[in-house]
């Protein structure tokens, strides 16, 4: 057979198989998980996301309570986050990212806030956008929400407040697990002079 002289010696093939077997054995076990600590108490406010409204409720509470475990359930596996225009920060930062990046950014933000709990706080509020009508379909929904995040720095006297504000368009879909989850999140600045949620997220990239 043409080309069969490629890695032709049986010893080479055996060596490759043995090496692979050793490699597989030495790497991550795909069946085992670690043991968790017993809960110290109730973990945040969370509802089974059986409707799109409950997803936004979970998003709101998980952000304000800094519970990344609950925040995670708000996003589908092929989730996309997209910002409208400029985003402060480093170059080569794209104006959209996916599920893994979103969860990593949330983890970093929540960990950062938890690590500075005495000096920093974030408070999120969501409200329907009066200028647009929500769209609900059988397994799809699009919600328009204005949002405001207050970043409170508690150490300076008087405490300093930074406002992040804008309009979020949440595209939700009922996934194959029958959960409702965010499929896409378009973030728009309220004005060009006020940073948006995307700016806050991007500062942790």
């Amino acid at each position, binding site marked *: 057979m043409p080309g069969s002289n*490629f890695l032709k010696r049986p010893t080479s093939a055996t060596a490759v198989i043995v090496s692979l077997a050793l490699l597989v054995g030495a790497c991550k076990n795909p069946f085992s998980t670690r043991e968790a600590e*017993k809960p110290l108490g109730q973990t945040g406010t969370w509802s089974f996301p059986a409707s799109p409204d409950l997803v936004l409720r979970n998003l709101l509470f998980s952000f304000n309570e800094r519970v*990344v475990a609950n925040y995670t359930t708000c996003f589908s596996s092929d989730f996309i986050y997209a910002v409208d225009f400029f985003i402060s920060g480093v*170059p080569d930062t794209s104006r959209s990212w996916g599920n893994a990046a979103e969860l990593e950014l949330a983890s970093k933000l929540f960990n950062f806030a938890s690590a500075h709990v005495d000096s920093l706080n974030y408070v999120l509020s969501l409200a329907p956008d009066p200028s647009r009508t929500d769209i*609900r379909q059988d397994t799809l929904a699009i919600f328009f929400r204005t949002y405001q995040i207050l970043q409170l720095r508690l150490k300076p006297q008087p405490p300093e407040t930074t406002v992040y504000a804008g309009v979020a368009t949440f595209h939700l879909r009922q996934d*194959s697990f029958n959960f409702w989850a965010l499929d896409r999140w378009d973030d728009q600045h309220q004005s*060009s002079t006020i940073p948006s949620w995307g700016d806050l997220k991007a500062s942790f990239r």
Partner: protein
Amino acid sequence: MAQLRRLFSILALFWLGGGAFTRASQVQFNFTQGNRTYSLTDSLLLERNFSDHWKLSLTNQSNLLLVKKAFLGGTRDRLQKYATSQIALGYQLSGTAEVGVALGREITSTDPLGYALSRFSGMLKWTPRNEFSLTTLLGLADQSKDSDLGKKGNSGPHWRSQVRWQKVLTKVGSVHLGASQNFLELKRLPARESNLSAALERKGGLADSLTVELHQRWAKKTYYFDERALSATARQNVNSSFIDGKLSRRWPGDWLAAFEYQYNRQENNYRPESVSDVLRDTLALDLQRRKNILWNQEVRATVGKQLKNVAGVTLGWHWEKGAEDYGVNFKDQRRETGELSGTVGLRPSSSDTVAVFGSIGVTSYFVPPISGFLSDRDLLNGTVSLSAGHRFSPYFDLKLTGSRRLLKQIYLSGRYSANNRTTDNYLLAPVLSYRFPGGFALRQGFNLGANYVTFDFLKTSPNADHTILRQASSASEMTLPLTARLAWILGYTYRYEDFGGLLWRDQWVEQTTWDRRTNIVDARFTYQWAKSLGVSGGFIWEQKFTYDHVARLSTNTIERIRSLSFIRKTVTFGLTYALDGANFLRADYQRRAQSGSGFSVGDTDWATVSYGRTF
């Protein structure tokens, strides 16, 4: 608007000029209008040959979005613009050399913020041999930035070049080498980037191959640290490497094995160059970004065997490890993934097909102790799915899909572990299709699903935390060709869902909290007026009612109370003039009216016009 007029003027001149369009030329426009939004996008590439030597090309991609009285019932409209365009004139000096000039402009803006970058370049392309090419551009660039604080400009030379060499070596295979650099020497915002790449491909036969790719990138870029400020700048240094090796091999017994290794590493260094008072705090928060290293490596191995045309089997293994090191503990993270997967395909007869897929994998995230392990977590994913098909006759067939998916989420910290849970999902979806000669068709599909959520640590009374969501639906569709030109498609969908806690009463029983019933009726038509002119339209009526199940202690009964209702009517109409898939003019209109309790109500109108042409 001025830029739009400029674009159309250039376009008109281009259109009226002499010479023939090349086959690469194509144009697409799309305009959409909603109640408050107007969107115009275009993508065009026009290339004309005026003689054997002279060539003119125009490229443009733009997106304009106007939102009327944009936010919070505001009184101000907002216009967003993004556009990149270039017009280039080329002259073929000989069979191996081409020279030219190009004028390009990029714009990104939302009033009052805006960036614009213009470049004027001279170009040389030299291809002395098939395996070697050199392209270089040299010129001047001008960048301007608008913000609330005013306007600032930067200008300077730019130089871009690219060298490629590829060679087929009889004994080794083929080798590709490439190098490129891009220098943009703006006075306050210099940017330099260099790339090297190498690839080796070895083909041993139909199934035996070895491929190795190496990429290396160095970049230095000065940028505005804050989009709203005109003074604060910072510098980013990037050093990134990418290695990819693939090996595939046919083993004795006709087993086909493939192995792939990938390594990706990026190191970023940041240095603030000028800091305003306003940004001092922002920069202080951003110190962690001064240096970071991100890397990951992964290995994939698959083994497969095909048994004539009757059966096939594949086994796969995937391992991935990566880390993010920001030099500050709350952002650092490591992760590791291991996954096994397999597929079996069978074709027992010409009328039957069966395929089974299964996979199981765990991804672990590790974070430093300082963050309290709040994000230390494991995710276990498992899937088994089956798809089968049987053809009863040339007109009648059955397709069946079923799956079970398992998702287990474990947070290690006691602060988060209360919500550790396993989600177990079952799905069965048979579809029957009848297709009769003449275009008449019937399709009936069913969908049955159940979703169990069980918590690792019970929070309140025994069992009360476990939940189940059940859903079942039926979708019927009939395609009715009334004449050779006119066809109707009629559909009806019914869906039932309920949700509740799972209680143990010698067996698991559901304590329903709510149920929801959905009805959707739709009627659509297509009418082919002429060979290239078609009309389509439709009406969709949707009704959704949700009922809460409330316990009446006085009567010891469960009462269903309607909590949410939703009704929507949608009308659509479309007109298409299409010579083929790439040359068309299409107009669509949609009106939606929705009402109900617990939902925002209102009417929405959408109109879209699209045009596409390929030369």
